[in-house]
């Protein structure tokens, strides 16, 4: 076990898996960014910008970071505006179509939908990518995250309203498409390359 606290946070995952242990400076930077977001939320909650609110936000933000520490999630990639727009636009469209579909199923008389649970192995195994992909696929048509295997990078997904095996394959592809959109929007160049090299041989169940 190393003495570096940042490395210990990633204990057991230093076996070449893509969880880079951030250095001390990186951790400080992550915390500063988190503090900035917390202060912004605090200001939005109060609804106006004043020195008192700013100070209160800083105090509360520091308290949250000190008393409720989270495992570090370092943003290692970079934002690509075009891909981000694609991600947001397709997400909005899919949220609408998913909602309409589920709402339609809910009010259709005599409907007994069948479902299935599938395992999908993601290609980019960082915590950030796992979390974002899980969030997005819970809000797009037919899929709901059920269980996450963080070390293996596998999402167990409940697929709703399955009619035939093609539906399952299609859902699997849709999940990988969501992952690709997310990585293209915010992933690092390395992760994007990972997508391209592994997209061919990832058809079968892990």
């Amino acid at each position, binding site marked *: 076990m190393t003495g570096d606290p940042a490395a210990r946070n990633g204990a057991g995952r230093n076996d070449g898996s893509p969880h880079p242990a951030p250095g001390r400076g990186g951790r400080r930077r992550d915390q500063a960014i988190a503090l900035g977001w917390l202060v912004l939320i605090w200001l*939005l909650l109060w609804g106006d910008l004043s020195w008192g609110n700013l100070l209160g936000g800083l105090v509360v933000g520091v308290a949250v970071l000190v008393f409720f520490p989270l495992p570090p999630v370092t943003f290692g990639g970079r934002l690509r505006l075009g891909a981000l727009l694609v991600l947001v636009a397709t997400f909005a469209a899919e949220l609408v179509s998913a909602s309409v579909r*589920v*709402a339609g199923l*809910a*009010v259709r008389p005599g409907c007994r939908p069948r479902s299935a*649970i*599938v395992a999908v192995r993601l290609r980019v195994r960082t915590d950030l990518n796992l979390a974002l992909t899980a969030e997005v696929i819970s809000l797009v048509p037919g899929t709901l*995250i059920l*269980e996450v295997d963080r070390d293996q990078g596998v999402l167990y997904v409940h697929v709703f309203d399955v009619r035939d095996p093609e539906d399952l394959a299609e859902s699997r592809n849709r999940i990988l498409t969501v992952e690709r959109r997310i990585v293209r929007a915010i992933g690092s160049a390395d992760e994007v390359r990972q997508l391209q090299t592994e997209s061919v041989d990832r058809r079968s169940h892990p």
Partner: protein
Amino acid sequence: MTAVADWLGAACLLAGALLGLAAGIGVLRFPDVLDRMHAATKPQVLGVLLLLLGLALRLRTPADLGMIALVGVFQLATAPVAAQMVGRAAYRSGRVNRALLDTDELADR
């Protein structure tokens, strides 16, 4: 201009309320916990977002818009997590109707 915003806001409020109603019906009618979670995430989240959009179009003051944006962001961030927690608890405690599942790749883990 304000009349258009008011009408759009009203339409959003109505659509959001209808989606919320459909989500409620789905939660009541779907046969299994996991199916119900689908109803509790997608139409419900979009319903709340539409209600918020409607509110934003009616209120139009910066302080309210900030609060509305916060509610929307937290709704998007928390609803899937809550659904996952409920679904996972149901699965682990065996309260899932396996007769409704075509395949279950979580079982052979």
